[in-house]
C-alpha cells in the first residue's frame, strides 16, 4: 500500500493546469513546425508560422497560448494499492483547478448551470475521469479543452453493416462540418466501439496520445493514416482559409462492442491540443 496526501494532488493539478495552458507538448510543437514547411498554400504557411510564433510568445510574455483556457478535463489513473489521506480526493482535484486558474491568469469559462449560465468564477468544476489500474502509482493527465472545437464533436451510432467505410464517412463528415470553426489544423480523436458513453471517452483519451505515436494495432494504424490523408485533401486548411494542412493527426482508440452496434465518437481538437501528464 502506498499512502498519498491529497494536498499533493492539489499542488500537482494546479501546476499542470498552468503548464498545459502556457506550453504545448514537444510532439505538438514539432508537428506544427513540420506542417508550416509542407503546407502548399502561401496564406496557410503564413498562418502556421503565426501559430509557431504564438507558442513562442506565450512563453516569452507569459500569456496563455489561447484565451480559451478551456474546461479542465482530468484523467486520474490510480493504482489499486494507493490509499488517500488528508481529505476527499475529488475536493483536492477541484481545489487544484481553482488555484491553477486563479494563479495562472487563466480564463474562467465555466458556468454553473447550463440554463442559468452564471460563471462559477474559478473554472470549477473540472470534468474528472477515474480509472483504477494495477500498481501503486498515480498517473494524472490534465487536458484543458476549448469549446470552439468541442462544439464540433460528434457521436454516430452506426450499424455493424456500415463497417469501416461508415466509420471513414463519419469522421470525414465531422471534420467538414467543423470546417473553420474548430480552429484547424485539428487533431482528431476517434473512439470506436464500446457503448454510447464509452466511445466518447475513448475519443477524448485519444487526444492525449502523442501525435507522433500511431496505434499499436496494424489495421487501425492504417486507418489513422488513410483518414489523415483524406482529411488533408478536403482543402479546409489552416484557419479554414484553404490549404493542405487540415489535420495534424488522427488518433483512434477502439474497444469491444455489442453484436448490434458500431458506435463512433469524433472528438475534435484544435491545434491547441493541450495536456500535461505526470506520474506520481
Amino acid at each position, binding site marked *: 500500500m502506498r499512502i498519498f496526501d491529497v494536498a499533493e494532488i492539489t499542488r500537482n493539478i494546479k501546476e499542470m493546469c498552468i503548464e498545459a495552458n502556457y506550453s504545448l507538448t514537444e510532439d505538438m510543437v514539432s508537428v506544427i513546425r513540420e506542417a508550416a514547411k509542407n503546407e502548399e498554400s502561401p496564406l496557410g504557411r503564413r498562418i502556421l508560422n*503565426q501559430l509557431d510564433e504564438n507558442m513562442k510568445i506565450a512563453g516569452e510574455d507569459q500569456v496563455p497560448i*489561447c484565451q480559451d483556457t478551456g474546461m479542465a478535463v482530468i484523467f486520474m489513473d490510480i493504482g489499486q494499492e494507493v490509499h488517500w489521506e488528508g481529505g476527499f480526493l475529488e475536493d483536492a482535484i477541484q481545489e487544484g483547478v481553482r488555484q491553477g486558474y486563479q494563479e495562472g491568469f487563466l480564463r474562467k469559462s465555466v458556468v454553473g448551470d447550463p440554463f442559468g449560465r452564471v*460563471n462559477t468564477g474559478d473554472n470549477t468544476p473540472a470534468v474528472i475521469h477515474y480509472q483504477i489500474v494495477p500498481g501503486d502509482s498515480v498517473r494524472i493527465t490534465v487536458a484543458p479543452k476549448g469549446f470552439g472545437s468541442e462544439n464540433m464533436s460528434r457521436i454516430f451510432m452506426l450499424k455493424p453493416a456500415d463497417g469501416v467505410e461508415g466509420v471513414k464517412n463519419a469522421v470525414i463528415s465531422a471534420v467538414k462540418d467543423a470546417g473553420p470553426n474548430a480552429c484547424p489544423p485539428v487533431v482528431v480523436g476517434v473512439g470506436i466501439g464500446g457503448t454510447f458513453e464509452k466511445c466518447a471517452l475513448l475519443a477524448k483519451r485519444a487526444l492525449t496520445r502523442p501525435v507522433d505515436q500511431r496505434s499499436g494495432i496494424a489495421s487501425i494504424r492504417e486507418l489513422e493514416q488513410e483518414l489523415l490523408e483524406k482529411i488533408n485533401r478536403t482543402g479546409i486548411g489552416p484557419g479554414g482559409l484553404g490549404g493542405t494542412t487540415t489535420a495534424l493527426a488522427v488518433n483512434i482508440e477502439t474497444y469491444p462492442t455489442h453484436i448490434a452496434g458500431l458506435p463512433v465518437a469524433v472528438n475534435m481538437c484544435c491545434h491547441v491540443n493541450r495536456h500535461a501528464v505526470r506520474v506520481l
Partner: protein
Amino acid sequence: MDKYISVPFDQAVSDSLKAGDYVYLSGTVYTARDAAHKRMYEALQKGAELPLDMKDNVIYYMGPSPARTGRAIGSAGPTTASRMDKYAPALLDLGLRGMIGKGRRTREVKEAIVRNHAVYFGAVGGAGALLSRSIVSSEVIAYDDLGTEAIRRLEIRNFPVIVVVDAAGNDLYETAAAEYCRE
C-alpha cells in the same frame, strides 16, 4: 494583398475590401461575445439604448484571459462567430461596419453584410498570445458583471485579420477551400 486601415471606418473603406485581403487594423474596436450579445439584443427588443453606438464600429468576438499586472490584456484571440449569428443582423442594420471572429456565418448574416456594406474579418483562432501584442489598451465599458464576457473598448495597433466575407458577399471559406480540395 496586405492593407493597413484604421477603425472605425466608413462604407468607402468596406467596399474597397475584398475577400482574401490581409489587413492590419489600427484604432478602436469593441469586444462582445455570447452573453453581451444576448443582453444587447434584449435591450433592443425593449427599446432600450445600447452601451455603444454601432455606426461604423467594429465588434471583436473575444473574451480575453486575465491581464497580468502592467499588461493591457491577456491572451486575446477570436471566438467562434456562428454563436453570434442570431444577433448580428440586427446590429448590422444599426450600422455596425465590421465583425472580427472565426468560423462560418449564416446566409442571414451574409445578406445583412451585403445589405449594409459591412465586412466580416477572420482572425487566426488559437493565436491569442500573438494577437495580444497588437492590443495597446483595454477598458471595460459595459456589463462588467459578465467578467470575460463584458464589453471592452480596445485600442489596437496593426492587428492582423483576413477579409472572409466582403461587402459583395464573397466568402473566402468557400472559395479558398475549394481551391485546395483534392477529393
